[in-house]
Protein backbone atom coordinates (compact mmCIF):
# COMPACT_ATOMS: atom_id res chain seq x y z
CA UNK A 1 0.00 0.00 0.00
CA UNK A 2 1.22 3.45 -0.92
CA UNK A 3 2.30 5.46 2.13
CA UNK A 4 1.37 9.09 2.77
CA UNK A 5 4.38 11.34 2.55
CA UNK A 6 5.92 14.03 4.71
CA UNK A 7 7.80 16.38 2.37
CA UNK A 8 10.26 18.87 3.82
CA UNK A 9 10.66 22.20 2.00
CA UNK A 10 13.75 24.38 2.20
CA UNK A 11 13.73 27.90 0.79
CA UNK A 12 17.04 28.50 -0.95
CA UNK A 13 18.48 31.82 -2.02
CA UNK A 14 21.91 32.24 -3.55
CA UNK A 15 22.73 28.65 -2.62
CA UNK A 16 21.88 29.08 1.08
CA UNK A 17 18.82 28.08 3.04
CA UNK A 18 16.99 31.16 4.23
CA UNK A 19 14.45 31.27 7.08
CA UNK A 20 17.18 29.28 8.75
CA UNK A 21 18.00 32.12 11.16
CA UNK A 22 15.57 30.74 13.73
CA UNK A 23 17.51 27.50 13.78
CA UNK A 24 19.90 29.13 16.21
CA UNK A 25 21.34 26.08 17.85
CA UNK A 26 22.67 24.62 14.61
CA UNK A 27 25.80 25.91 12.95
CA UNK A 28 25.24 24.11 9.65
CA UNK A 29 21.75 25.42 9.25
CA UNK A 30 22.38 27.54 6.21
CA UNK A 31 23.77 24.72 4.11
CA UNK A 32 21.05 23.03 2.03
CA UNK A 33 23.11 19.84 1.60
CA UNK A 34 23.56 19.42 5.35
CA UNK A 35 19.95 20.18 6.12
CA UNK A 36 18.54 17.90 3.43
CA UNK A 37 20.60 14.92 4.56
CA UNK A 38 19.72 15.64 8.17
CA UNK A 39 16.01 15.57 7.35
CA UNK A 40 16.49 12.31 5.43
CA UNK A 41 18.03 10.78 8.54
CA UNK A 42 15.05 12.01 10.59
CA UNK A 43 12.64 10.23 8.24
CA UNK A 44 11.61 12.84 5.66
CA UNK A 45 10.15 11.11 2.59
CA UNK A 46 11.19 13.81 0.13
CA UNK A 47 12.99 17.14 0.01
CA UNK A 48 11.94 20.23 -1.93
CA UNK A 49 14.35 23.07 -2.66
CA UNK A 50 12.36 26.15 -3.51
CA UNK A 51 14.58 28.73 -5.14
CA UNK A 52 13.53 32.21 -4.10
CA UNK A 53 16.53 33.96 -5.67
CA UNK A 54 15.80 37.23 -7.39
CA UNK A 55 18.64 37.15 -9.90
CA UNK A 56 19.89 34.72 -12.53
CA UNK A 57 23.33 34.64 -10.89
CA UNK A 58 21.90 33.53 -7.57
CA UNK A 59 19.71 31.03 -9.36
CA UNK A 60 22.61 29.42 -11.21
CA UNK A 61 24.13 28.37 -7.91
CA UNK A 62 21.05 26.23 -7.15
CA UNK A 63 22.07 23.71 -9.79
CA UNK A 64 25.41 23.33 -8.07
CA UNK A 65 23.64 22.88 -4.74
CA UNK A 66 21.39 20.23 -6.31
CA UNK A 67 24.44 18.42 -7.67
CA UNK A 68 26.15 18.33 -4.28
CA UNK A 69 22.90 17.33 -2.56
CA UNK A 70 22.10 14.49 -4.98
CA UNK A 71 25.47 12.90 -4.25
CA UNK A 72 24.55 12.56 -0.61
CA UNK A 73 20.77 12.40 -0.55
CA UNK A 74 19.07 9.07 -1.18
CA UNK A 75 15.46 10.24 -1.14
CA UNK A 76 13.75 12.21 -3.93
CA UNK A 77 14.64 15.85 -4.47
CA UNK A 78 12.32 18.36 -6.13
CA UNK A 79 13.59 21.69 -7.44
CA UNK A 80 11.26 24.63 -7.92
CA UNK A 81 11.49 28.31 -8.66
CA UNK A 82 12.36 30.09 -11.88
CA UNK A 83 11.75 27.10 -14.15
CA UNK A 84 10.55 28.44 -17.52
CA UNK A 85 11.20 25.85 -20.23
CA UNK A 86 11.68 22.13 -20.82
CA UNK A 87 15.39 22.93 -21.17
CA UNK A 88 15.34 24.39 -17.64
CA UNK A 89 13.71 21.14 -16.51
CA UNK A 90 16.42 19.17 -18.27
CA UNK A 91 19.16 21.18 -16.55
CA UNK A 92 17.55 20.66 -13.14
CA UNK A 93 17.21 16.91 -13.70
CA UNK A 94 20.77 16.60 -14.98
CA UNK A 95 21.96 18.51 -11.94
CA UNK A 96 20.35 16.05 -9.56
CA UNK A 97 16.65 16.80 -9.21
CA UNK A 98 14.18 13.93 -9.46
CA UNK A 99 11.22 16.23 -9.99
CA UNK A 100 10.84 19.84 -11.07
CA UNK A 101 8.01 22.12 -10.05
CA UNK A 102 6.70 24.73 -12.46
CA UNK A 103 4.47 27.59 -11.37
CA UNK A 104 4.25 30.97 -13.16
CA UNK A 105 5.70 29.63 -16.41
CA UNK A 106 2.91 27.06 -16.67
CA UNK A 107 0.28 29.79 -16.29
CA UNK A 108 2.00 31.85 -18.98
CA UNK A 109 2.41 28.87 -21.29
CA UNK A 110 0.85 25.53 -20.22
CA UNK A 111 2.64 23.72 -23.06
CA UNK A 112 5.80 23.74 -20.93
CA UNK A 113 4.15 21.00 -18.84
CA UNK A 114 3.39 18.94 -21.96
CA UNK A 115 6.85 19.37 -23.43
CA UNK A 116 8.54 18.44 -20.14
CA UNK A 117 6.32 15.39 -19.59
CA UNK A 118 6.94 14.14 -23.12
CA UNK A 119 10.70 14.37 -22.68
CA UNK A 120 11.13 13.25 -19.10
CA UNK A 121 7.90 11.53 -18.07
CA UNK A 122 4.92 12.93 -16.13
CA UNK A 123 6.33 11.58 -12.86
CA UNK A 124 8.94 14.36 -12.72
CA UNK A 125 6.66 17.25 -13.71
CA UNK A 126 5.07 18.96 -10.71
CA UNK A 127 2.56 21.75 -11.28
CA UNK A 128 2.91 24.20 -8.41
CA UNK A 129 -0.29 26.15 -7.76
CA UNK A 130 -0.58 29.09 -5.36
CA UNK A 131 -4.24 29.67 -4.51
CA UNK A 132 -6.04 32.38 -2.58
CA UNK A 133 -9.61 32.09 -1.35
CA UNK A 134 -12.26 34.39 -2.83
CA UNK A 135 -16.03 34.34 -2.82
CA UNK A 136 -17.10 31.09 -4.46
CA UNK A 137 -13.68 29.44 -4.72
CA UNK A 138 -9.96 30.05 -5.08
CA UNK A 139 -8.00 32.09 -7.63
CA UNK A 140 -4.53 31.22 -8.90
CA UNK A 141 -1.70 33.64 -8.13
CA UNK A 142 1.70 33.72 -9.79
CA UNK A 143 5.10 35.31 -9.20
CA UNK A 144 5.41 34.23 -5.60
CA UNK A 145 1.81 35.11 -4.81
CA UNK A 146 2.09 38.71 -5.99
CA UNK A 147 0.11 38.52 -9.23
CA UNK A 148 -3.56 37.60 -9.32
CA UNK A 149 -4.92 35.69 -12.31
CA UNK A 150 -8.49 34.99 -13.37
CA UNK A 151 -7.88 31.23 -13.21
CA UNK A 152 -9.99 29.16 -10.84
CA UNK A 153 -7.57 27.00 -8.83
CA UNK A 154 -9.56 23.77 -9.16
CA UNK A 155 -10.07 24.24 -12.90
CA UNK A 156 -6.41 25.14 -13.31
CA UNK A 157 -5.35 21.97 -11.48
CA UNK A 158 -7.43 19.97 -13.96
CA UNK A 159 -5.84 21.81 -16.86
CA UNK A 160 -2.32 21.20 -15.50
CA UNK A 161 -2.96 17.45 -15.35
CA UNK A 162 -4.48 17.49 -18.84
CA UNK A 163 -1.29 19.22 -20.00
CA UNK A 164 0.90 16.51 -18.49
CA UNK A 165 1.65 17.33 -14.84
CA UNK A 166 2.16 14.18 -12.77
CA UNK A 167 1.73 15.80 -9.39
CA UNK A 168 0.20 18.98 -7.92
CA UNK A 169 1.96 21.02 -5.26
CA UNK A 170 -0.92 23.04 -3.87
CA UNK A 171 -0.19 26.03 -1.65
CA UNK A 172 -2.81 28.04 0.19
CA UNK A 173 -1.57 31.64 0.20
CA UNK A 174 -4.11 32.42 2.94
CA UNK A 175 -2.62 29.84 5.28
CA UNK A 176 1.05 30.05 4.29
CA UNK A 177 3.10 31.08 7.31
CA UNK A 178 0.06 31.37 9.61
CA UNK A 179 0.45 28.00 11.32
CA UNK A 180 -3.33 27.78 11.55
CA UNK A 181 -3.62 24.50 9.65
CA UNK A 182 -3.82 23.62 5.96
CA UNK A 183 -6.78 24.80 3.85
CA UNK A 184 -8.62 21.48 3.98
CA UNK A 185 -11.44 22.58 1.68
CA UNK A 186 -9.02 23.66 -1.01
CA UNK A 187 -7.05 20.43 -0.78
CA UNK A 188 -10.21 18.35 -0.80
CA UNK A 189 -11.61 20.20 -3.84
CA UNK A 190 -8.42 19.79 -5.90
CA UNK A 191 -7.93 16.19 -4.78
CA UNK A 192 -11.43 15.35 -6.00
CA UNK A 193 -10.87 17.11 -9.33
CA UNK A 194 -7.68 15.35 -10.46
CA UNK A 195 -6.26 11.83 -10.43
CA UNK A 196 -2.59 12.64 -9.78
CA UNK A 197 -1.06 12.92 -6.28
CA UNK A 198 -1.62 16.15 -4.33
CA UNK A 199 1.02 17.65 -2.06
CA UNK A 200 -0.69 20.07 0.34
CA UNK A 201 1.25 23.14 1.43
CA UNK A 202 0.77 26.19 3.61
CA UNK A 203 -0.40 26.43 7.19
CA UNK A 204 1.23 23.57 9.08
CA UNK A 205 1.34 24.59 12.74
CA UNK A 206 1.59 21.17 14.34
CA UNK A 207 1.85 17.46 13.67
CA UNK A 208 -1.89 17.32 14.09
CA UNK A 209 -2.40 19.72 11.18
CA UNK A 210 -0.40 17.30 9.02
CA UNK A 211 -2.61 14.42 10.14
CA UNK A 212 -5.73 16.44 9.32
CA UNK A 213 -4.72 17.33 5.78
CA UNK A 214 -3.79 13.73 5.00
CA UNK A 215 -6.87 12.31 6.67
CA UNK A 216 -9.74 14.69 5.93
CA UNK A 217 -8.04 16.92 3.34
CA UNK A 218 -7.43 13.88 1.11
CA UNK A 219 -3.86 14.96 0.38
CA UNK A 220 -1.35 12.30 -0.63
CA UNK A 221 1.51 14.22 0.92
CA UNK A 222 2.02 17.19 3.21
CA UNK A 223 4.68 19.82 2.77
CA UNK A 224 6.21 21.00 6.02
CA UNK A 225 8.78 23.76 6.54
CA UNK A 226 8.77 26.34 9.35
CA UNK A 227 7.70 24.13 12.24
CA UNK A 228 10.60 21.80 11.49
CA UNK A 229 13.20 24.51 10.86
CA UNK A 230 12.49 26.27 14.17
CA UNK A 231 12.49 22.99 16.07
CA UNK A 232 8.88 23.18 17.30
CA UNK A 233 8.41 19.61 16.07
CA UNK A 234 10.36 16.92 14.22
CA UNK A 235 9.71 14.66 11.24
CA UNK A 236 9.86 11.74 13.65
CA UNK A 237 7.20 13.23 15.95
CA UNK A 238 4.91 13.97 13.00
CA UNK A 239 5.28 10.43 11.72
CA UNK A 240 4.63 8.90 15.12
CA UNK A 241 1.38 10.82 15.31
CA UNK A 242 0.40 9.76 11.77
CA UNK A 243 1.18 6.13 12.59
CA UNK A 244 -0.86 6.31 15.78
CA UNK A 245 -3.78 7.66 13.73
CA UNK A 246 -3.55 4.58 11.52
CA UNK A 247 -2.29 6.32 8.39
CA UNK A 248 0.06 4.26 6.19
CA UNK A 249 3.48 5.87 6.48
CA UNK A 250 7.14 4.97 6.22
CA UNK A 251 8.82 4.73 9.60
CA UNK A 252 12.58 4.79 9.86
CA UNK A 253 14.42 2.73 12.43
Amino acid at each position, binding site marked *: *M*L*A*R*RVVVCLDVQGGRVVKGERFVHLREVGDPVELATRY*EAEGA*DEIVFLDISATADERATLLDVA*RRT*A*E*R*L*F*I*PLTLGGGVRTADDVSRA*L*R*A*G*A*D*KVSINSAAVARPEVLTESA*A*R*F*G*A*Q*CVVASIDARREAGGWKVYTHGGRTRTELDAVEWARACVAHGA*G*EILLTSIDRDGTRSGYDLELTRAVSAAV*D*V*PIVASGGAGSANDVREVLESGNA*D*AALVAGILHDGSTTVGAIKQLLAAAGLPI*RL*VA
Partner: protein
Amino acid sequence: MKVTIFDYGAGNLHSLLKALAGDDCRVETQTDPSLAAKDTDVLVLPGVGAFGHAAARLAPGRDAVRAAIDAGLPCLGICLGMQLLFDASDEGPGIGLGVFPGRVRKLEGERVPQIGWNTIENALDPLLDAAPLPIAYYANSYVCDPIDIPSVRAWSTHGSTTFPAFVRAERTVGVQFHPEKSSRSGVELIRAFLREVGS
Protein backbone atom coordinates in the same frame (compact mmCIF):
# COMPACT_ATOMS: atom_id res chain seq x y z
CA MET B 1 34.89 -4.28 -10.78
CA LYS B 2 33.64 -1.97 -13.52
CA VAL B 3 30.00 -0.90 -13.58
CA THR B 4 28.56 0.82 -16.64
CA ILE B 5 25.40 2.91 -16.52
CA PHE B 6 23.73 3.26 -19.89
CA ASP B 7 22.76 6.93 -20.02
CA TYR B 8 19.72 7.63 -22.21
CA GLY B 9 20.21 11.32 -21.59
CA ALA B 10 17.01 11.80 -19.68
CA GLY B 11 17.56 12.38 -16.02
CA ASN B 12 19.37 12.48 -12.75
CA LEU B 13 22.11 9.87 -12.36
CA HIS B 14 23.95 11.46 -9.43
CA SER B 15 22.38 9.45 -6.62
CA LEU B 16 22.69 6.23 -8.61
CA LEU B 17 26.36 6.89 -9.39
CA LYS B 18 27.02 7.53 -5.72
CA ALA B 19 25.08 4.45 -4.59
CA LEU B 20 27.03 2.22 -7.01
CA ALA B 21 30.46 3.64 -6.33
CA GLY B 22 32.59 1.94 -3.73
CA ASP B 23 36.19 1.00 -2.95
CA ASP B 24 35.92 -2.06 -5.16
CA CYS B 25 33.84 -0.46 -7.86
CA ARG B 26 34.51 1.92 -10.74
CA VAL B 27 31.39 3.44 -12.28
CA GLU B 28 31.19 4.88 -15.77
CA THR B 29 28.32 6.30 -17.76
CA GLN B 30 28.02 5.40 -21.41
CA THR B 31 25.76 7.16 -23.90
CA ASP B 32 26.64 4.87 -26.82
CA PRO B 33 24.44 1.75 -26.60
CA SER B 34 26.82 -0.31 -28.73
CA LEU B 35 29.53 0.24 -26.10
CA ALA B 36 27.34 -0.01 -22.97
CA ALA B 37 27.75 -3.76 -22.54
CA LYS B 38 31.35 -3.89 -23.74
CA ASP B 39 34.37 -4.32 -21.44
CA THR B 40 32.30 -4.07 -18.29
CA ASP B 41 31.45 -6.35 -15.38
CA VAL B 42 27.97 -5.00 -14.68
CA LEU B 43 25.43 -3.10 -16.77
CA VAL B 44 22.94 -0.77 -15.11
CA LEU B 45 19.86 0.51 -16.94
CA PRO B 46 18.71 3.57 -15.00
CA GLY B 47 15.20 4.69 -14.38
CA VAL B 48 14.31 8.08 -15.74
CA GLY B 49 12.44 9.00 -18.90
CA ALA B 50 9.88 7.58 -21.27
CA PHE B 51 9.97 4.11 -22.89
CA GLY B 52 9.82 5.28 -26.52
CA HIS B 53 12.69 7.71 -26.11
CA ALA B 54 14.86 5.20 -24.22
CA ALA B 55 14.10 2.34 -26.65
CA ALA B 56 15.10 4.59 -29.54
CA ARG B 57 18.37 5.44 -27.81
CA LEU B 58 19.00 1.77 -27.09
CA ALA B 59 18.07 0.54 -30.59
CA PRO B 60 21.51 0.74 -32.31
CA GLY B 61 23.06 -1.36 -29.53
CA ARG B 62 20.05 -3.43 -28.53
CA ASP B 63 21.27 -6.73 -30.01
CA ALA B 64 24.75 -6.32 -28.56
CA VAL B 65 23.35 -5.62 -25.09
CA ARG B 66 20.98 -8.57 -25.31
CA ALA B 67 23.81 -10.87 -26.45
CA ALA B 68 26.01 -9.74 -23.56
CA ILE B 69 23.22 -10.40 -21.05
CA ASP B 70 22.62 -13.84 -22.60
CA ALA B 71 26.35 -14.51 -22.27
CA GLY B 72 26.12 -13.80 -18.53
CA LEU B 73 26.74 -10.08 -18.08
CA PRO B 74 25.02 -9.10 -14.81
CA CYS B 75 22.42 -6.41 -15.36
CA LEU B 76 20.36 -4.25 -13.01
CA GLY B 77 17.37 -2.44 -14.50
CA ILE B 78 15.72 0.27 -12.43
CA CYS B 79 12.14 1.49 -13.08
CA LEU B 80 12.18 2.35 -16.82
CA GLY B 81 15.37 0.26 -16.97
CA MET B 82 13.40 -2.76 -15.69
CA GLN B 83 10.72 -2.07 -18.30
CA LEU B 84 13.39 -2.05 -21.04
CA LEU B 85 14.19 -5.65 -20.04
CA PHE B 86 10.70 -6.65 -21.32
CA ASP B 87 9.49 -6.97 -24.92
CA ALA B 88 7.60 -3.73 -25.50
CA SER B 89 5.50 -1.05 -23.80
CA ASP B 90 2.10 0.59 -24.18
CA GLU B 91 3.87 3.86 -23.28
CA GLY B 92 5.63 4.22 -26.60
CA PRO B 93 7.08 2.58 -29.68
CA GLY B 94 10.26 0.56 -29.93
CA ILE B 95 11.36 -2.81 -28.67
CA GLY B 96 12.89 -3.70 -25.35
CA LEU B 97 15.58 -6.25 -24.63
CA GLY B 98 13.11 -9.11 -24.21
CA VAL B 99 15.06 -10.75 -21.40
CA PHE B 100 11.70 -11.11 -19.66
CA PRO B 101 8.83 -12.12 -21.96
CA GLY B 102 5.89 -9.78 -21.51
CA ARG B 103 4.64 -6.27 -22.08
CA VAL B 104 4.71 -3.05 -20.10
CA ARG B 105 1.21 -1.73 -19.44
CA LYS B 106 -0.40 1.41 -18.04
CA LEU B 107 -0.83 1.28 -14.28
CA GLU B 108 -4.49 1.38 -13.32
CA GLY B 109 -5.32 3.10 -10.08
CA GLU B 110 -7.00 6.02 -8.43
CA ARG B 111 -3.82 8.11 -8.55
CA VAL B 112 -1.41 7.72 -11.44
CA PRO B 113 1.53 8.29 -11.62
CA GLN B 114 2.24 6.32 -8.53
CA ILE B 115 4.54 8.64 -6.63
CA GLY B 116 5.75 7.72 -3.20
CA TRP B 117 6.76 4.92 -0.88
CA ASN B 118 5.05 1.59 -1.33
CA THR B 119 5.41 -1.66 0.59
CA ILE B 120 7.27 -4.62 -0.93
CA GLU B 121 5.17 -7.76 -0.62
CA ASN B 122 5.94 -11.49 -0.76
CA ALA B 123 9.67 -10.93 -1.21
CA LEU B 124 11.32 -14.18 -2.21
CA ASP B 125 14.84 -13.57 -3.45
CA PRO B 126 18.28 -14.03 -1.86
CA LEU B 127 19.02 -10.36 -2.60
CA LEU B 128 16.01 -9.21 -0.56
CA ASP B 129 17.15 -11.54 2.23
CA ALA B 130 20.62 -10.02 2.15
CA ALA B 131 19.28 -6.47 2.05
CA PRO B 132 15.68 -6.35 3.30
CA LEU B 133 13.63 -3.50 1.85
CA PRO B 134 10.16 -3.38 3.41
CA ILE B 135 9.16 -0.15 1.64
CA ALA B 136 10.60 1.55 -1.43
CA TYR B 137 10.18 4.73 -3.48
CA TYR B 138 8.24 4.54 -6.73
CA ALA B 139 7.62 7.10 -9.48
CA ASN B 140 5.90 5.34 -12.37
CA SER B 141 2.82 5.31 -14.57
CA TYR B 142 3.54 1.92 -16.19
CA VAL B 143 4.18 -1.55 -14.80
CA CYS B 144 5.51 -4.81 -16.22
CA ASP B 145 3.14 -7.64 -17.12
CA PRO B 146 5.38 -10.73 -17.26
CA ILE B 147 4.40 -13.97 -18.93
CA ASP B 148 6.80 -15.90 -16.70
CA ILE B 149 5.31 -15.39 -13.22
CA PRO B 150 8.06 -17.29 -11.34
CA SER B 151 10.53 -14.61 -12.50
CA VAL B 152 8.70 -12.20 -10.16
CA ARG B 153 10.44 -12.26 -6.77
CA ALA B 154 8.45 -9.47 -5.05
CA TRP B 155 5.25 -7.51 -5.62
CA SER B 156 3.66 -4.18 -4.74
CA THR B 157 0.05 -3.01 -4.83
CA HIS B 158 -1.27 0.37 -5.94
CA GLY B 159 -5.01 0.80 -5.60
CA SER B 160 -6.40 -2.52 -6.77
CA THR B 161 -3.45 -3.42 -9.03
CA THR B 162 -0.73 -5.78 -7.85
CA PHE B 163 2.36 -5.55 -10.03
CA PRO B 164 5.94 -6.89 -10.10
CA ALA B 165 8.32 -4.97 -7.84
CA PHE B 166 11.34 -7.22 -8.49
CA VAL B 167 12.07 -9.68 -11.29
CA ARG B 168 15.04 -11.92 -11.83
CA ALA B 169 16.46 -14.10 -14.59
CA GLU B 170 19.75 -15.51 -13.33
CA ARG B 171 22.06 -12.50 -12.96
CA THR B 172 19.64 -9.99 -14.46
CA VAL B 173 17.52 -8.16 -11.89
CA GLY B 174 14.81 -5.61 -12.58
CA VAL B 175 13.24 -3.41 -9.91
CA GLN B 176 10.23 -1.16 -10.53
CA PHE B 177 11.09 1.03 -7.54
CA HIS B 178 14.08 3.36 -7.21
CA PRO B 179 16.56 1.80 -4.76
CA GLU B 180 18.82 4.86 -5.15
CA LYS B 181 15.91 6.97 -3.80
CA SER B 182 14.83 4.54 -1.10
CA SER B 183 17.18 5.89 1.54
CA ARG B 184 19.76 3.73 3.30
CA SER B 185 17.99 0.39 2.78
CA GLY B 186 17.73 1.02 -0.95
CA VAL B 187 21.42 1.80 -1.26
CA GLU B 188 22.11 -1.40 0.70
CA LEU B 189 20.15 -3.37 -1.91
CA ILE B 190 22.33 -1.95 -4.69
CA ARG B 191 25.48 -2.80 -2.73
CA ALA B 192 24.17 -6.32 -2.12
CA PHE B 193 23.52 -6.79 -5.86
CA LEU B 194 27.10 -5.74 -6.64
CA ARG B 195 28.42 -8.13 -3.98
CA GLU B 196 26.33 -10.95 -5.40
CA VAL B 197 27.43 -10.53 -8.99
CA GLY B 198 31.01 -9.71 -8.02
CA SER B 199 31.53 -12.91 -6.06
